[in-house]
């Protein structure tokens, strides 16, 4: 996966160069990979759990760190796009650590889910809480009410384009989705997520198709699926990749990318 991430970082760099922004780009990842497995992350990750389950945070709440430890929180708005039934609501629940609905109930508007994710920066060992706000809008509601899409796009930092491994149509729909919600000059982080990968026996989308999609669009593709077991392993790759891309994007925007020599 790190190869894919690196590839995306490079793409980003190339694009920024063409826009006249030419900061120095780090070689390799900016954040500590798989930090949730390191012992020093424990005191941070326990704060996003409650009674062995992931904690849901209301808008006024945040992980409670002891007063002597100061952790900055960086907030990002992330839009989930994809055909009805691909699993946007399920993905938001999965990333937030709640059970995924086993029925498909159409989402009849916008719902947001907040996810706190501790991240350690490679360069200086600084720890940050990434607060992701996932914006999930039912596709049929989106078509019915014109005001929803602009609202989802307002000040968005990243978009996850979803397709389902069991629905080839949703894979074909990706290019429509991408052109509908983005334009080539925006600075939005884009990732693609294939859902229902646990149903690979019934898969409709081949590895070759995915490779060729990646080639054409230069977007990394993630695979998720299966029951939520509450562990971090199933969500860490995606949440870390988001952190990587978003932090990088911020650095580019602020032209403060750490010099490559230090990495």
């Amino acid at each position, binding site marked *: 996966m790190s190869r894919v991430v690196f590839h995306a970082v490079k793409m980003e760099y190339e694009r920024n160069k063409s826009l006249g922004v030419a900061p120095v780009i780090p070689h390799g990842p900016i954040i500590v990979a798989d930090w949730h497995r390191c012992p020093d992350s424990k005191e941070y990750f326990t704060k996003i759990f409650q009674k062995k389950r992931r904690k*849901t*945070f*209301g*808008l*006024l*709440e945040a992980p409670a760190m002891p007063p002597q430890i100061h952790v900055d929180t960086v907030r990002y*708005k992330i839009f989930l796009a994809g055909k009805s039934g691909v699993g946007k609501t399920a993905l*938001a*629940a999965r990333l*937030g650590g*709640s059970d995924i609905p086993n*029925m498909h*109930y*159409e989402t*009849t*508007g*916008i*719902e*947001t*889910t*907040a996810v706190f994710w501790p991240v350690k920066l490679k360069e200086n060992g600084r720890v940050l809480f990434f607060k992701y*706000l996932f914006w*999930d809008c*039912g596709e*049929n*509601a989106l078509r*019915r*009410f014109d*005001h*929803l899409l602009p*609202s989802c796009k*307002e*000040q968005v930092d990243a978009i996850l384009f979803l397709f389902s491994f069991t629905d080839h149509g949703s894979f074909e729909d990706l290019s429509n989705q991408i052109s509908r919600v983005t334009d080539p000059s925006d600075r939005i982080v884009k990732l693609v997520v294939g859902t229902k990968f646990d149903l690979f026996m019934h898969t409709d989308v081949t590895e070759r198709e995915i490779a060729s999609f990646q080639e054409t669009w230069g977007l990394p593709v993630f695979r998720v699926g299966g029951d939520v077991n509450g562990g971090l392993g199933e969500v860490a790759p995606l949440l870390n990749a988001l952190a990587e891309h978003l932090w990088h994007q911020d650095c580019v925007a602020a032209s403060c990318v750490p010099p490559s020599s230090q990495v």
Partner: protein
Amino acid sequence: MLQAEGVQLLCLTASSGVPLFSRGSTKQLPFSVIGSLNGVHMFGGGQGALLSCCETDRGARVVWRVFRDSVMLIAVSSGGDSTVTELQLCRLLENTWNCMVLVLGQEELSNVRNVERLKRDLRSCYRLIDQLLDPGDDESVMGYLTNCADCLLPPNPSLLQEALDAFTQAADSEFGCLLIRGRVAVATEKWWRLVSQEVVLLSLLVRCMSGTTSCDYPVFLPVGSPTVAHRLLRFQLLQGVDVCTLCGPAPSLHHAKTELVGRFWSPLMETLHGLLAQTQHTPVPSIALHPDILALLLINRETSRSLSVPGRPPAVTPQDGVPPLPSSSRRWELLRLFYTFAITRYFTSGEAAAPPAEPLQEDFSQGFCHTPLHCYLVTEECKCYGLQTPQHQLFLLAALTMPTFALRSIATQTLTSITAATGF
């Protein structure tokens, strides 16, 4: 709950009887039966008779209702051990229709041009409808039966009211509401002017979304605005505390969330935490009930608000010679049954509580030349007492150990003490 009792809900086009959807009971009725159910209703219509309800000798019930001459809803309960009353089925049909309007708007439902398309669009109502059929573990919520908003009385409402009014105004709205565990704690004056079924449905909608942080849902108000959608903005402040507003085009969800929520609600964080703790076991923390009261439902008939207050929890180890107290879930069930019994037989005059259509059962109360003000019932499980005043209705369950002659005074005292202490 209704689902568990084998209730099935059918929706057909009124003109041609084309099935639109069916929810509920996992054992689906065969198509031929659905056809016959539609057929008898149509036959009645042809004879100038309105078929609204029937009951088999084994206790199964069917209730029909046509909405706006375009959609027919049928509820079927399988009978047997089930205790689903006619009132519950009537309410289910009403609420289902209101959910359909809430999500899709009246226009699409009344002028059906393309049946296949309507069928597809109706799928977006399933979440709410299934919630009506199976309201989950919070059994003390009764709004879908009483048509009254389930409330909670915070001990310090003025602070919350001020914050809510200011927040609502800042969100360019006059309609705002603060829900604690799905019950209305405070609301703006305009929110209370929505018809009570709307308040009930909006609370239901918010309860459906408990896992998420905020929402922006287009909603049609079944009575107040059935053809123009408003935006329901909802923010989860803490787990179990939600604030909602009904808005026009502005503000955007992003703006409201990043600019307004923190400004108006952060200062109240401690208050809200405290309130959550105080109301963990009762919606009226300022009141101590008589220890023999198992549960009660208090309705304010003028404001269409209700309180469901649990009594003393059942003892873990039953004592010798003392009959065991019903479990708390059984208490709510008994209270629902007693409520239904009392308002269909005795307290029939209250508009807010009476069934919508013509009285469907042979009119028991017509035998009286007076309006009953009190009623009681002694069963093998508990004693029940109901009383009504021009402003209130109280339905109370007491343990069998309470002497029957004491019911009346305990009920009257309870009503007086709650209303005096809280102004409810």
